């Protein structure tokens, strides 16, 4: 049971001012590195909460779908340009980022994933693929600067980051669609 400790250490490390300043200084590392790492820290810490409050999770997240929903809402919220801007300007939003992504996205995802059947798992990936393509389109071709804190070039870079991640997810979806694992097992 070391993983919650590692998760906490990761979260604390990400909260250190030099690290958070470095990651937040570039738009794409802010959204595509710091935020996923916060979720990862939550994934690591989930076991602690699952052991501590087993009834809460079995009652409120019986089939995994509520957790999935919560995860998706939090992730969608943090992919808006405005929320990133606010995280940089308002301390309260920054604090919310460091709480919501590990505990309201990472922890529920870890709890939900094993409970979900492959329909929901694939639905989640398809949803995020579409979301990423749309966000990629938004960030690359937006005629205006979307964030006060980041230059247009950074915005375009982030857009291509979304498109390349979406491409990877499409490859994965094609792979799992065409691969019949039962033939190999």
């Amino acid at each position, binding site marked *: 049971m070391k993983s919650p400790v590692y998760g906490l250490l990761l979260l604390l490390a990400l909260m250190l001012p030099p690290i958070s300043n470095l990651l937040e200084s*570039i738009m*794409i590392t802010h959204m595509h590195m710091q935020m996923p790492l916060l979720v990862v820290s939550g994934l690591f810490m989930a076991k602690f909460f699952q052991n501590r409050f087993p009834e809460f999770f079995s009652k409120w997240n019986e089939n995994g779908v509520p957790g999935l929903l919560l995860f998706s809402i939090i992730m969608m919220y943090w992919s808006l340009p405005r929320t990133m801007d606010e995280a940089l300007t308002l301390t309260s939003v920054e604090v919310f980022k460091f709480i919501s992504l590990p505990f309201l996205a990472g922890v529920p995802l870890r709890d939900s994933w094993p409970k979900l059947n492959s329909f929901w798992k694939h639905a989640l990936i398809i949803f995020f693929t579409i979301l990423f393509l749309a966000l990629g389109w938004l960030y690359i071709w937006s005629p205006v600067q979307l964030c006060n804190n980041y230059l247009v*070039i950074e915005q*375009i*870079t982030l857009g*291509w980051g979304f498109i390349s991640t979406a491409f*990877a997810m499409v*490859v*994965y979806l094609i792979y799992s669609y065409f691969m019949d694992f039962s033939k*190999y097992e």
Partner: protein
Amino acid sequence: METVIKQSGKTQVFKDKANKIMGISLEDAKLTKSYLSVAFLAILLGGILGLLQGLNRAGMLELPAWLNYYQVLTAHGLLLVVVLSAFFTIGYFYAGLSHTLGGLLPKVRKMAWVGFWMKIFGFVLAVIPILMNEASVMYTFYPPMAASPIFYIGLVFIVLGVWMCAFGAFINVASWRKRNPGQHIPILSFFATGVFVLLFFGSIPVAIEVFTIIPWAFGWVETINVMVARTLFWAFGHTLVNIWYLTAVSAWYVIVPKVIGGRRWNDLLTRIVVIALVIMNITGGFHHQIIDPGISEPVKYMHVFMSLAIGFPSLMTAYAMFAVFERTARRKGGKGIVGWYKKLPWGDVRFLAPFIAMAAFIPAGAGGIAQTTNQLNQVVHNTMWVVGHFHLTLGMSVVMTFFGLSYWLIPYVSKRVLTPQINKLGVIQTIIWTLGMIIMSGAMHWVGLLGSPRRTSYSTYFDNATALSWDPYLFFLAIGGTLLMIGVLMQVYAVFYLMFFAPKGNTEFPIAEVEEDEAPTPRWTERWGLWVVCMIVLVGMAYVIPLVDFIVNAPPGSPPFKTW
């Protein structure tokens, strides 16, 4: 069949037994023999050119007017970096696929032959302009130096030939998996899968680069984005380097333990090393551009981290290898903290050559880590140090492993045996090669630290005192190069003797087994699609920022230059 997992199905069992008793099928053997013959002819030619170049670089030999230093440099690089490595890797792994998967599928064999002739055709196309002094752009053929368009068209065929072989390997592995449900890919084929995945994905960037260069070289477009082209080149260039390294590593994990009469390292950890190297490799290309302009400091910093990450599986390998040696030697009665080394078969070239290759990777890897570091790279970047570094990694770690493999692989595919005389010749060759490479590469490293530039023919810079002070080191370079030429001649003799003249007999394909009490390897190691997706994500992380910057903030672009 000597893999970890037993085969199932009657046909498969029959095929495997036939493979074991009769050795490789004649058709598969012919394929590997052809690939290996080209590889060793390339080393002969490349070696001769290397000697000319080394002597010329030391100021000891004047090249004739019709042959200049950069021409020789380009041909030497292409022959050894592209031809030798690609042909050996493919020949070796196709023999491995044939042996561990119960023979190649007829379709796959055909694909490998088509790939063979495409590569040869491409190579001939590339060599013609080099001989005509129209393509003296060196192995690193990125703009703004421009060669004749024919050179690049030749490269396209080489890449297509490599893809043919990669897809052949995938088809063979997939078909085996369907026929053997629930089983792990035999370890050597697992390595082969990793290598071909890297060969395919690593050559996509260079294919894109070459397709943008061709219209530029023809003059259809006036300018090219130099930074994009360099970045695409190194995404391939670095991966290619690591493909040979992974090929050598496969022999260290799978073959060498059997040669010394031991068992191989933990199956799961071995597979993790392969997966880690496949996922993390392509992004390493960036550290070749660490002093390039137009890349911001934070991006360079991130890339230093990503490159150093590749060192981790290598450190795992170093640990694993010495652990296997020690365990095997102790089982044979070896004693003491290091005294066990006496029990290793030092007189067997099949062990000695790969062992020295591994040992060479200790300084070679350390040098690589030094070069990956921003500040240290600035000291050595354009100096002979770098040339010394890749002669140590490729010329020793990789090529000596290939040499060691040839002493059983060639008898195996030729249905002949390694004679004690050739073994002795091999041991002497190994010693000569080691001495030659230490002298040459050592001199290159040192003279590089003193400032002698790479990619530059001999010059005393109007008898400048600093430039003159390099001369003694350059003599050592020439002496080392001469020893290496002797090594090349001995090796090529041994190869063709073993292929055509050695006594007939059966040679075993040495694949070590795992320890008996080892836990079964988990299924997730077989999810190749997932590893490829991880690789794509990592490549995206590495390249999106700089490429968007290079393209969106592009400078006017460069016309083609012919500097020679």
